[in-house]
């Protein structure tokens, strides 16, 4: 697996990439809150939020195809909501059909709920993707440290980031070995047992690796802190970007 699997486009060169990570975290998370707190009937506001976010993406030179593809993860949940729309009985009926004795009716409030979750979850997902695709993982963690995130968790996450690639590679090798031995065609009982064994082997290998990593780090003087050379600087561009984003979001929200 390539090491840029997590923050693939974080090394691009654009104005958004060079902003202070602390500011970016605050701006993109506030964006999510503004979107979530907007009432679902305000269609124009959602359109404006959409325009704002996509102009930022335009500035950041991120490939649109990548953003759209990653944002498709919200689809299963939205479909699950769509499944329940016929059960919401109250309200004016937008359309109905019957199947045998069963009558299904789709009401306007039901459709509004669907629109609500679809647009809000989609915009939020894209906002977070833009944040993490324009910021390097190490910078993001450092920024979270400035924002008073618990240190144990940041340490766990940074170790996780360093070893995800190694362990996913290990997992994929095990999977290939299983597939090469016709794993998919076994009976379910055997398949579950073998799958369990695969995970157990992965667990033991990960644990033993962790022990070696710990010993290696200890012998190099690890004292529970990560140190980075880079210092964050809050520049005038950051100030301008933060002010513009804040003003636009506020304006969209209150109009």
């Amino acid at each position, binding site marked *: 697996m390539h090491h840029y699997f*997590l923050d693939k486009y974080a090394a691009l060169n654009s104005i958004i990439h060079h902003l202070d990570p602390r500011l970016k975290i605050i701006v993109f998370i506030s964006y999510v809150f503004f979107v979530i707190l907007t009432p679902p009937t305000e269609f124009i506001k959602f359109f404006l939020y959409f325009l704002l976010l996509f102009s930022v993406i335009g500035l950041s030179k991120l490939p649109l195809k990548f953003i759209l593809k990653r944002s498709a993860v919200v689809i299963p949940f939205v479909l699950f909501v769509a499944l329940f729309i016929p059960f919401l009985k109250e309200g004016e009926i937008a359309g109905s059909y019957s199947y045998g004795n069963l009558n299904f009716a789709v009401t306007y409030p039901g459709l509004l709920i669907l629109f609500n979750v679809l*647009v809000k979850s989609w915009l939020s997902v894209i906002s977070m993707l833009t944040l993490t695709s324009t910021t390097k993982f190490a910078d*993001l963690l450092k920024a979270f440290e400035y924002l008073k995130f618990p240190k144990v968790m940041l340490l766990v996450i940074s170790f*996780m980031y360093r070893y995800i690639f190694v362990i996913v590679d290990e997992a994929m090798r095990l999977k290939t070995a299983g597939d090469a031995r016709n794993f*998919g065609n076994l009976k379910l009982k055997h398949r579950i047992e073998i799958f369990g064994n695969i995970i157990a082997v992965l667990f033991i290998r990960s644990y033993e690796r962790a022990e070696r990593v710990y010993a290696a780090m200890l012998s190099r003087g690890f004292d529970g802190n990560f140190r980075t050379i880079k210092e964050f600087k809050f520049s005038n561009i950051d100030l301008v970007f933060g002010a513009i984003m804040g003003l636009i979001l506020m304006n969209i929200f209150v109009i």
Partner: protein
Amino acid sequence: MHIPDGFLSPPIFIGMWIIAILIIGYAVKKTNKKVLDKHVPLMGVLAAFIFATQMLNTPVASGTSGHMLGGVLAAIFLGPFAASIVMASVFIVQALFFADGGITSLGANIFNMGLLGTIVGYFIYKGIRKAIERVTRKESKKGIIIAAGIASWCAVVLASAACSIEISASGIFPLTESLIAMVSVHAVIGLIEGLITMAVVSFVLKVRPDLLNLEKI
């Protein structure tokens, strides 16, 4: 089961965030007290392990596939609080980088799968294990394996029930229908989780039984 943004109303997600922060805060405090440096690399590598297992899908039936949640599994080896930190870290990375679960709903996701699915799951495991040991009057490997399986099943079902209650309380789903749908689907998914957890635990008991006796946090 990772709830995206927009599915929970403000009072619900704020409430869940507060609960999640309290729990994680307690877990962080507990972990900090014990040997911090030894556990941190272990927890980090195990978080990567949980992440990798969630990527390994096993085909279940006719096109659908399931993956592990792994909360109870992590708790059996690390103890409930260290495991809840590991799980929370996994959810944070998934929410930030894979858009798997939202930011506003992260508190709810940590509560559902990190607290109900890990801490409560662990105490169910411990309770069943003790009960079996009391009945058979000896410490048996079978008891550990069975307890792990049942606890994993309970964890998945509890987490799915909590997930559907939270979304219904936000007015997105009707409560009864969604609860029935979510819980019945996850009762089956939980069965697979339970069986896989049992297979993992029995394999580890055969190969490295010492790993089950690590210091638990």
